[in-house]
């Protein structure tokens, strides 16, 4: 029993070390990619596949988040006669938390799964070994463009999710439930700061980086056969999902500390 636990612990620590090394290689290779113009076409291609083609699904996600929040929160606020404050609640939830997190989860499913399946299939059909055998670093050629595309475009996708979340909330609150249009926007503008929007967007860099690194790693280390590729895709999604939630918590704590530290100086720059 002790032997089994010990062996699993050693294997677990080994896997973490291997993943950490892979992440370091991936981010170093991503930085080097900027310096080589030959890699730009690869990055554009991944940006199209990962970023541009995710826009519709991300917009739909954002819109439903905003609309659902409006439907759920209206009764509670109306009971207290505060229904005109609904905009603040919806918009701050969307831009700070739900927009970024749900957009990232959607990306983990749509993009992360595809990355793992593609790289996993390349791995089991020896295509990654073929890249190596021709004197090319597979992390530089295959991982760096995908990491860069996720890293750079996830914040933009979050802006789309935010935008549609705000419009979805407005549609249900003002058009469907009849809240005064002017009051809705006035309270929203007073309650949501640029800081809140920025926090949500900056989270996108971390979420995008985590999704790409985990998905590519799982693809590179996937086991032989169709079962191996399927298992790697499942593991990639679960690991990405948990990482998004854990990162969201950690970033919430960090950003709150930064906000509280610099809040007293706001009047000096404002």
């Amino acid at each position: 029993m002790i032997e089994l636990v010990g062996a699993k612990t050693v294997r677990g620590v080994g896997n973490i070390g291997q993943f950490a090394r892979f992440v370091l290689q991936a981010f170093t290779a991503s930085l080097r990619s900027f310096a080589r113009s030959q890699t730009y076409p690869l990055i554009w291609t991944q940006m199209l596949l990962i970023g541009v083609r995710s826009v519709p699904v991300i917009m739909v996600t954002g819109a439903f988040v905003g609309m659902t929040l409006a439907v759920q929160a209206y009764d509670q606020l109306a009971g207290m006669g505060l229904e005109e404050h609904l905009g603040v609640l919806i918009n701050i939830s969307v831009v700070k938390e739900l927009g970024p997190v749900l957009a990232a989860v959607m990306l983990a499913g749509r993009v992360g799964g595809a990355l793992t399946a593609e790289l996993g299939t390349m791995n089991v059909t020896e295509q990654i070994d073929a890249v190596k055998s021709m004197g090319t670093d597979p992390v530089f050629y295959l991982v760096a463009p995908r990491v860069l595309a996720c890293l750079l475009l996830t914040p933009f996708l979050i802006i789309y999710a935010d935008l549609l979340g705000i419009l979805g909330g407005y549609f249900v609150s003002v058009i469907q439930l009849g809240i005064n249009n002017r009051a809705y926007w006035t309270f929203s503008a007073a309650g949501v700061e640029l800081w809140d929007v920025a926090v949500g967007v900056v989270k996108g860099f971390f979420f995008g980086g985590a999704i790409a690194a985990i998905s590519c790693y799982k693809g590179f280390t996937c086991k032989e056969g169709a079962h191996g590729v399927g298992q790697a895709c499942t593991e990639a999604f679960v690991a990405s999902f948990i990482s998004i939630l854990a990162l969201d918590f950690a970033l919430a704590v960090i950003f709150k500390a930064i906000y509280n530290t610099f809040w007293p100086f706001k009047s000096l720059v404002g």
Partner: protein
Amino acid sequence: MKKSDENNQTAAVSSNGVLSVKGLTKRFGSNVVLDNISLTIEKGKTTVVIGPSGCGKTVLIKHFIVLLRPSSGEVYFKNQRIDNLSENELNKIRTHYGFLFQGGALFDSLSVFDNIIFPIRQHYKITDWGLVEELVKAKLAMVGLDGFQNYYPANLSGGQRKRVALARAIALNPEVILYDEPTTGLDPIRADVINELVLKLQKELGVTTIVVTHDMTSAYKIADRIIMLHNGKIIADGDAEHIRNHPHPVVQQFITGQVSEDDLAVLRMSGTISQAQFLPRDFEK
């Protein structure tokens, strides 16, 4: 092992070959796949590695290009030790090699043209596309597939995929070409086309060739030297004639393709097919 095989190996290690391994051992967990192998590959010759499935042939060939790192032992390319180099340093060395993978390992998302220029694109800045097109045309003509530039791997047969993969393997004019089971899965005629290509490339380009196969027709046709692996060790090493007349029973059994008495005994013990327990026809009830 026969005395001459031992002498062959010892002499080979000390001679000035282009590739060599010394005391190479590879373990996967507790499974020892290669056990203290020492071997030198001579420049410009075709060396064929034979042995039953799972005996470590592919593992051995992947060590020559350090796609796998040894558990212990050393790998040399032109007298330079390469198994301890970083991946970046190895990438420079690997441009001297061409590797034909068992399934071809062509990139599915790229056309035949893009597959062949892949290594060129990675190591040279292409300024004259006309020249590159001529080069691809020439490489494809060498493998008899000129005109297939715009095809995708999914539209090619197994033999065509291997020939395109071979055109890609020779794109950088390598000094060493490694072939992993080049004729496996092909009909006898296509397999012979690949054999002729191996001979042609060796003759025209003067490359050092290492072929892993269990196809004895192919081995006899192309080999200057045949090495047989069994249980992680080299049990026979010599030219085709030496292998044909080798006294080791495992070598004879392998080259004649006959099942051993032990295997037959296992089959007899498992009973006759008529005695086998099939599901009754009305099993759904």
